[in-house]
């Protein structure tokens, strides 16, 4: 049986990634950010989402990519979790795409081990590959090192 799934896609450097649409609460522009000293490196800060305090995770840092060029501002992909919303910072938002299970494959063994742990699988689209982000694993950060960065 072929099942179609919808993904909210976004770009991060050369990577083309997707999160299942049902997990995404909303996509918003850059917000005023409050830094959190001593937090894990991937935590960029806290934003005020209509009275709710949401942690923003720097997805570039999480995937081991270099920081975004100075003047470009990231977008917030706010995902739902059991413990409230969390925002993922990405370079650029793409379209919502429909995929087929038939095009799905596990991630190849050869890709960067850091990235591989966070990628659930790959969809072979006609013109490129869509990497499916494992949001649960992405949101588990290593415990804060004593003394911070």
């Amino acid at each position, binding site marked *: 049986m072929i099942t179609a799934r919808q993904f909210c896609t976004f770009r991060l450097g050369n990577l083309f990634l997707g999160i299942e649409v049902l997990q995404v609460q909303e996509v918003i522009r850059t917000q*005023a950010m*409050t*830094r*959190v*000293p*001593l*937090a*894990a490196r*991937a*935590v960029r*800060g*806290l*934003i*005020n989402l209509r*009275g*709710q*305090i*949401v*942690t923003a*995770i720097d997805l570039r840092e999480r995937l081991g990519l270099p920081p975004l060029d100075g003047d470009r501002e990231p977008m917030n992909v706010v995902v739902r979790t059991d*413990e*409230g919303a*969390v925002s993922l910072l990405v370079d650029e938002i793409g379209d919502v795409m429909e995929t087929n299970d038939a095009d799905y494959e596990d991630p190849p063994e050869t890709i960067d081990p850091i990235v591989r742990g966070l990628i659930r699988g790959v969809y072979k689209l006609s013109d490129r590959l869509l990497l499916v982000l494992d949001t649960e694993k992405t*949101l588990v*950060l290593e*415990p*804060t090192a004593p*003394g*911070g*960065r």
Partner: protein
Amino acid sequence: MSDMDDIVKEFLVESSEGLDTLDRNLVALEKAPGDKELMGGIFRAIHTIKGTSGFLGFGRLESVAHVGESLLSDLRDGKQALTPDITSALLRLVDAVRAILGDIETTATDGENDFLELVDLLTRLRKVEVAPAAPVTVTAAPTSAVVAGSAGPDLTEARGPHASDSNIRVDVSLLDRLMNLVGELVLTRNQILQHTAARGDAGFVATSQRLNLITSELQEGVMKTRMQPIGNIWAKFPRVVRDLALACDKKIRIEMEGEETELDKTIIEAIKDPLTHIVRNSVDHGMELPADRMARGKMAEGRLLLRAYHEGGQVNIEISDDGGGVNAERVKATALRKGLFTTEQLARMTDREVVNLIFAPGFSTAEQVSNISGRGVGMDVVKTNIEKIGGTVDVHSTPGKGTTLKIKIPLTLAIIPALNVSTARERFAIPQVSLLELVRLDGDEVGTQIEMVYGAPVYRLRGRLLPLVSLGHALGVEPDFWGPANTQRKIVNIVVLQADEQAFGLVVDEIHDTEEIVVKPLGKQLKGISVIAGATIMGNGRVSLILDVLGLAQKAAVVSDNRKRRAAEAGAGSRETDEGARETLLLFQVGLDHRMAIPLSMVARLEEFPRTVVERAGKHQVVQYRGRLLPLLPLAELLGETNIPVARDPIQVVVYHHEGRDLGIVVQNILDIVEENRTTHRRERGGAVSGTAVIQGKVTDLLDVRAVINDADVLLFAGTPALEPQLAGV
């Protein structure tokens, strides 16, 4: 069907409330066996449960309650006397009913357990004494039965409608939602107030002030709905204490004061287990056996006192026993044996510090682990749980006399007053509970008044060394602990904070205003950062982090320091026994030897001014202060002191704030800030002195600031606003 569910639910709620009262009343009845009213109440409670369970078709519950009712009916009619055995059996009955109710709640049936053994026991207890007692009381019984029986329903009918008319049951989750909404409203109010200040449209200002008032009142009202008397959780302690005392062959009387003291429901829930543990501990370890007590010349019956009262926006709970006290030597020996501290460390500690070691993780003094309080949780867990809700716990013990545990907890967790500070261009909120005072060092003072002790910066605060911690460094945003950047600062702001008995100074870039903030939890990605307690949304819509004062102190290793404020502690010890409202006083010296005090609440700031900046305006001495003129009041001269020493340079000034204007009271020396008991003051002198008290072992006069101002020069105050425009350009 759903109607039925509702009825069952209501039955469950009412019954479980009734059971808690039953526990308490049964224990009380044991103390006062002749109390007809208590007896009647107990009988009615069981009777109601029996009746309703029969109606709802819970046969097992009905039959268990029935035997209890029969026994109670005999007791009530005086056919047999209450013995400890019967009380125990009746308490077991309460437990059984509670267990069946639990079954009904989870499975909607009254379970499998018939409690045959208990039913048997209750029946047997009834038979044993019925035979001999019956002939004697049979004639008297009916009358008293009729009286009690008729009085019962009448009472409930008379009270019933009133109670149900003025009370409704509300789901706690609804209250939580309301509380959250009010929290949001408070934030929005703060934002509007900030905009208002910027605009200045008169109509808008008036409206937003009304909004301000209404929001505050609404917030207070909603907070009140969540308040519960602490008596609700104390209610089960008489039973706990009775059962425990019986089990360890001790005689203990429990007394309660301030049961009506109210606390937020979430806090009540949070302190329930720690309190139970402390009470069990007191009975098990604190109290001696009756024979030992007699040998020490005490009453055989021990006294356990629970006391709760409000003080300075916090709730204090004290649990004191008159038992053997904590044996400091044994505590030391245990700490050594368990490798928690070294001999040198222990030798440096005061007795009080040693006693407080019972809260150290991995510590348990019980020689034998008993099945009573040895339940796998130690006092360290009690302490952690209390600190989790922003409280503190402290133990005082006098060997042979007893032990007192003192818990201080905030009234509510959701909305707290906080001081805003900033460092490295980020804003932080500091809960005001931990705030002692603010110190501002200007110009030269920065270089001279901050001294180094072996690389650690300290500040002399009224003669005591205050360790300083740089917030920027503690947060890892400034590399140097006390680098050149700091010593070259023009102004240093020190926030004096209290963490775990130890005061320390937090150096921040700027100090802003205070604000009511709504505490919001952080996501799991940020758990484990000890210096941050949570986050909040400020008036400008930005997210701000709330600092965890205890975490900060621990990170900066301030708390583990042994430099305790011994003088203050010695003072505190002698004050513990006093009763009545306490007040924080500022102590200062006037003239050569005159000690005086004023309530700290009247003091805006403490300042030092070099003699050279004192100028004259009219016939008054003034200084230019924060862009305004501050009139100075030479207190020694005004009071007609005869021994006026050479004035110090810089002069010491208490800035007093009155109706929007500041006034500087010049004193010789600022001595200390103490918490003092108002009731000890005697009013005996007129004029500028409103009373006299003995503070820190010395006679101290209380200054009546208003009287001084009136005496000195009425025009001084009245004249200030007129002076301002003329002098603004000076």
